[in-house]
């Protein structure tokens, strides 16, 4: 049973990993991107944001295929409440001065000092943050819902 669970968790982690790896790789590549032309930096940022969004949608569709009606209802709750929680969390996180300064600094570094590019990159990075937090929020609500369903199990 434990082996089965570990396998299940491992497979799940493997499927989810691109959503984590791409943003982490993007931020890790920040110093290198800062030395590249602005067009390339913007393209990479946009590609990363698009990938995270598209892959999240792909994962959602894949998971939904195998769900029964109770689980689909749970997913609906997770999506609506989780998205809202994620958006609110993003607003709260962005109100933290040190984090906001860090993001602005990162955007400035990536844009090589060009204010216009920095704004564009700042928006892209902020959007990625919102999407990631929404996914985390939906996941958290989904976990809470499945725990509710498991209560009083025999």
């Amino acid at each position, binding site marked *: 049973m434990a082996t089965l669970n570990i396998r299940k968790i491992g497979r799940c982690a493997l499927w989810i990993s691109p959503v984590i790896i791409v943003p982490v790789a993007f931020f890790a590549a920040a110093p290198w991107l800062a030395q590249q032309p602005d067009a390339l930096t913007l393209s990479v940022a946009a590609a990363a944001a698009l990938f995270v969004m598209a892959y999240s949608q792909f994962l959602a569709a894949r998971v939904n295929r195998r769900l029964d009606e*109770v689980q689909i209802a749970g997913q609906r709750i997770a999506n609506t409440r989780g998205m809202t929680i994620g958006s609110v969390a993003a607003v709260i996180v962005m109100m933290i001065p040190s984090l906001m300064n860090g993001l602005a600094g990162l955007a400035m570094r990536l844009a090589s000092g060009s204010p216009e590019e920095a704004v564009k990159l700042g928006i892209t990075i902020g959007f990625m943050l919102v999407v990631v937090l929404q996914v985390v929020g939906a996941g958290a609500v989904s976990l809470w819902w499945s725990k509710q369903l498991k209560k009083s199990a025999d």
Partner: protein
Amino acid sequence: MKNFIRVLRAGKGWSQAELAERVQVSRNSINAIENGRFDPSLPLAFKIADAFNLTVEEVFDKTDV
């Protein structure tokens, strides 16, 4: 909605997992329906009733609607 799934299941000697397999849903879903946390759709209610060879009214308490 109240239902008699737990009693009927016990009568047949089925676990939640066994009933879940018969009606092709997850065990957690059977648990949620059994405990009144989720009202099943009509097709699923019929499937559950069919599994017990009963009518929907005999499995689900319509006085609780």
